[in-house]
C-alpha cells in the first residue's frame, strides 16, 4: 500500500511540478517557435506514457502484493499483446520523429535572403565580423592571424577590406532580418549560444560551421559559450542587441572596417617607431 502511494505521489508530484515550475524556457526571440512546439509535443506523448506506467506499477504493487494463499499467474508470452504494444510504440515514436525531422530540415536549409555574418571564438572572448558595403565577407584563415589582424582575415581579398569588425564588444542584429551565422574558432571548441534564439552550434578550429535564424523581437540577450573551452569557459560572455532598422543602421555606421583597423594599427606602430627613433 505504502509503496503504491509513493509511486502515485511521484507521478502526481511530477505533473504538479511541471505545471507550477517557475523554471521554463526563456521567452523566445527568434523564428524557431517550431522547436518549442516539437518539445511540447514530445512532452505530451512521453508524459502520458510515463504517468500511465507509474499508475500501472502502483496498481500492480497494491493489487498483487504477496499473500501466502495466492499464486501468481503463469503466462510466459502473449504475442498479440507484445506486438500490439510494439505497434503503438512505433506510432508514438513516429509521431515525434516526423515533425522533428521536418523542423530539422527547416533548420539546416538557409533561405537565400539570409545575410551572413561571422562569429569568431577564442579563449575566452567573442569577436564578430559583418559584411561591409559589398555585402560579402572576405575569406579568412587562422594562418593569417597577426597582431594587427587578430581574426585572420585574408589581407589580399578585396571583399574583406570593408568587413566590419567587432572585437570584444556587443553584437547588433536587425530585427526581422534572417541571418546566416558563420562560426570559426582560432583555438579550441566553443559554442555560440543565445538561449532566447534556441539555436546553438559548436565552433571548431579549422572549419566553418553555421546555423540560421531570424531575430523576432528587439532587446539585449546574453551570449554564452556552451562547449567546454578551458578554465574560464563559464566567463566567456558577450551580448547581442537586436535593434530596429534605424538603430541598427546608426550603430553599423559607427563601426570600424578591416581596412581602417589595419591602417590604424600601422599608424600606431609608425608613431611608436618615430617616437622611439627621436
Amino acid at each position, binding site marked *: 500500500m505504502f*509503496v503504491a502511494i509513493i*509511486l502515485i505521489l*511521484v507521478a502526481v508530484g511530477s505533473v504538479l*511540478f511541471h505545471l507550477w*515550475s517557475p*523554471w*521554463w524556457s526563456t521567452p523566445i526571440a527568434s523564428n*524557431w517557435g517550431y*522547436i518549442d512546439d*516539437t518539445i511540447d509535443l*514530445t512532452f505530451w506523448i*512521453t*508524459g502520458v506514457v510515463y504517468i500511465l*506506467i507509474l499508475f*500501472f*506499477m502502483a496498481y*500492480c504493487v497494491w493489487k*498483487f502484493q*504477496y499473500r501466502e494463499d495466492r499464486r*501468481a*499467474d503463469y*503466462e*510466459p*508470452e*502473449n504475442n498479440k499483446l*507484445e506486438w500490439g*504494444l*510494439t505497434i503503438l*510504440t512505433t506510432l508514438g515514436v513516429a509521431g515525434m*520523429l516526423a515533425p*522533428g*525531422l521536418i*523542423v*530539422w530540415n527547416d533548420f*539546416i536549409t538557409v533561405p537565400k535572403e539570409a545575410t551572413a555574418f561571422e562569429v569568431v571564438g*577564442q*579563449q*575566452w572572448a567573442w569577436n564578430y565580423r559583418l559584411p561591409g558595403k559589398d555585402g560579402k565577407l572576405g575569406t579568412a584563415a587562422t594562418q593569417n592571424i597577426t597582431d594587427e589582424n587578430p581574426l585572420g582575415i585574408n589581407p589580399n581579398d578585396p571583399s574583406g577590406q570593408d568587413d566590419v569588425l567587432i572585437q570584444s564588444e556587443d553584437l547588433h542584429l536587425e530585427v526581422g532580418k534572417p541571418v546566416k551565422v558563420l*562560426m570559426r574558432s*582560432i*583555438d579550441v571548441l566553443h*559554442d555560440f*549560444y543565445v*538561449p532566447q534564439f534556441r539555436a*546553438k552550434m559548436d*565552433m*571548431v*578550429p*579549422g*572549419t566553418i560551421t553555421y546555423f540560421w535564424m531570424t531575430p523576432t523581437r528587439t532587446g*539585449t540577450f546574453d551570449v*554564452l559559450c*556552451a562547449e*567546454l*573551452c*578551458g*578554465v*574560464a*569557459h*563559464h566567463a566567456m560572455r558577450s551580448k547581442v542587441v537586436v535593434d530596429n532598422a534605424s538603430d541598427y543602421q546608426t550603430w553599423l555606421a559607427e563601426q570600424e572596417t578591416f581596412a581602417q583597423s589595419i591602417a590604424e594599427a600601422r599608424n600606431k606602430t609608425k608613431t611608436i617607431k618615430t617616437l622611439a627613433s627621436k
Partner: protein
Amino acid sequence: MADIGHDAADYAPPAELEEVDLYHAKSWITKYVFSQDAKVIGIQYALTATAIGLVALVLSWLIRLQLGFPDTFNFIDAAGYYQFVTMHGMIMVVYLLTALFLGGFGNYLIPLMVGARDMVFPYVNMLSFWIYFLAVLVLVSSWFLPGGPTGAGWTLYPPQAIMQGTPGREWGIIMMLLSLALFIIGFTMGGLNYVVTILQARTRGMTLMRMPLTVWGIFVATILALLAFPALFVGAIMMLLDRVLGTSFFMPHIVELGEHLKYGGGSPILFQHLFWFFGHPEVYIVALPAFGIVSDLISTHARKNVFGYRMMVWALVAIGGLSFIVWAHHMYVSGMNPYFGFFFATTTLIIAIPTALKVYNWVLTLWKGNIRLTLPMLFSLGFIVTFVNGGITGLFLGNVVVDVPLSDTLFVVAHFHMVMGVAPIMVIFGAIYHWYPLMTGRMLHEGMGKFHFWITFLGAYLIYFPMHYLGFLGMPRRYFEMGETSFVPESAATLNEFITVTALIVGFAQMVFLFNLYWSRRNGIVAEKNPWHANSLEWQTPEMPPGHGNFGKELPVVYRWPYDYSVPGVEADFIPQNVPAGGTATGAE
C-alpha cells in the same frame, strides 16, 4: 531439445567434452590476492570499483557545493571544479559502472549461472583484474603529479584537452589517456573470457534460450564492449601522440595566446566520432547488464515468470546492434555535416522501441504476480521509475532539432544521470541485496536497507527531476558559476541549493549502505539456502557461499528455463533449472 524456452524436458544431451581440472590455489596469496577463481576476482573488481567510486562520490559533493553555494568555498577554484567534474564523470562511467557490472557481477555470476566451474581462461582473468587495478592507480596518480588531474571534461575533447588553458595539461591528461588504454587492455582480457565461457562452457541442457537474462545482458554488453572500446583505445593513443610527440591527428592550425602553434591539418571532430563510437555503446554496456539483472530480480521477487522472455532476449540483441549506429546523436551541434542529423535521429528513436518493450515486459511481469516487496524488488521498482523517466528525456535529446536548444545544458546532465547513473545504480543495489546472501551466507540488514532505498530513490529523483527544468531555462552544463545573466531568475539559485542539500543527504545514505555491507558480514541473519526461492543455478550449489569449483562433484544438468515460478499444478511456487520435467523442487516446502 525444446526450442521454446519455457517447455521443460526430462532429458539433457550428453556432455560434449570431458571436464578440465581447475587451478587449485596453493597459498593464501594465490587464493585471495593473485586469485584465479572468478568469484574472488569478481569481488576484487567490486571492491576496487567501490573504492574508486567513493572518490567519485566525494567529487560529486564538491561539485554540488560549488553549484549550490558559489563564492562560499575558497578551496574550490575554477580549475579545481573542472578537474572534479572530469574525474567524477570518467570514474563513474568507466572505472565504477563498467568495471562493477562486467568485472564484478560478470565474474561472479557467469560461471555460476551457466553451470561452469570457472571462467575458461582463469589466468587471463586474474591478469584482467590486476591490469584494471593498475589503471585505477595510474588514474589516481594524476592527483599527485604537477598540475593535477585533467579538467578537460570526461569527453576529453581536443584541442582543449591538451592545451594550456585546461587544467592538468602537464601530466593529468597523459595519465588519463594511459589509464584508459590500460583499462581497455585489462577489460579485453576479461571480456573475451566472459564471451567464451558463455559460448563454450555452459553445462548440459543449458541452451542459449535457457540462460537467465542476467547472463544474456552481460553477454551482449561484453560483445558491445569488445567492439566499442578499441575506438576509444585508438583515440586515446592518437591524442597521446598529439600531446607528447606533437603529431596532429586531432589538431588543426591553432593560435593560442597570440602565438601560432606547430600543429596543423588535424580534425577535432574526428576524435568526437571515435569517442562516441565507443561512448554510445558504452551507455548500453552499462544498461544491458542492468536490464538483464533487473529482469531476474523482478521475476524472482514477483514469483512470476519474466513476461515475454524471447522478446526480452531479442530486444537485448537489437538494442546492442542498434547502439552502434546512433553515436553521432551526441554530436548534433558539433559542426558535423548537418545531414547526418536525419539518419542519427531516426536510428536513435528506433532504438526506443525495443527499449520500451523491455519496460512493458517488466511491468507486465508484475501484473498478476505475487509481489514480495523485498529490498531487491524495491530497488527494481525504483529502477523502472528512474529508467523510464531518463528514457523519455532521451527522446527529447535524440530528436535532432529538439536537441539543439537543450544540448550542453543541465537538461543533458539531468537526463544522463537519471538514465545511466541512478537507474543502473538502483539495479546494482538491488543485485547486491539479492546476491549478498549467496556471497556471504548472511542477509543484509532490512531496516538499514529500507532507509537506504527510500533516501536514495526519492532523493535522487528530487535531485534530477527539477534539474531538467534548469536546462529548459538554458543554464549550460560545466559552468563553474553562472555569474550575471539576464535570463536566470534568482529562484534558480534556490533550487540549486536544494539540489545540493539533497545530494549530501543521498550521499550520507550510501555510507549507511556501506556500513550495512560491513556489519552484516558478521552480524546479519544467517541466510537459509536459496533464501529467495530462486530457480537459477547459482542458488543450487551444494554449499553456500559456493566453494572452489562451484558445484561440488557433479556439474548440474539443466532441464528447464530459469523462470518456472508459480507453474500451475505444482505445489511449490518455484522449480529450479536442474529439476527434470515432472520432478519437484528440492528444498521446497
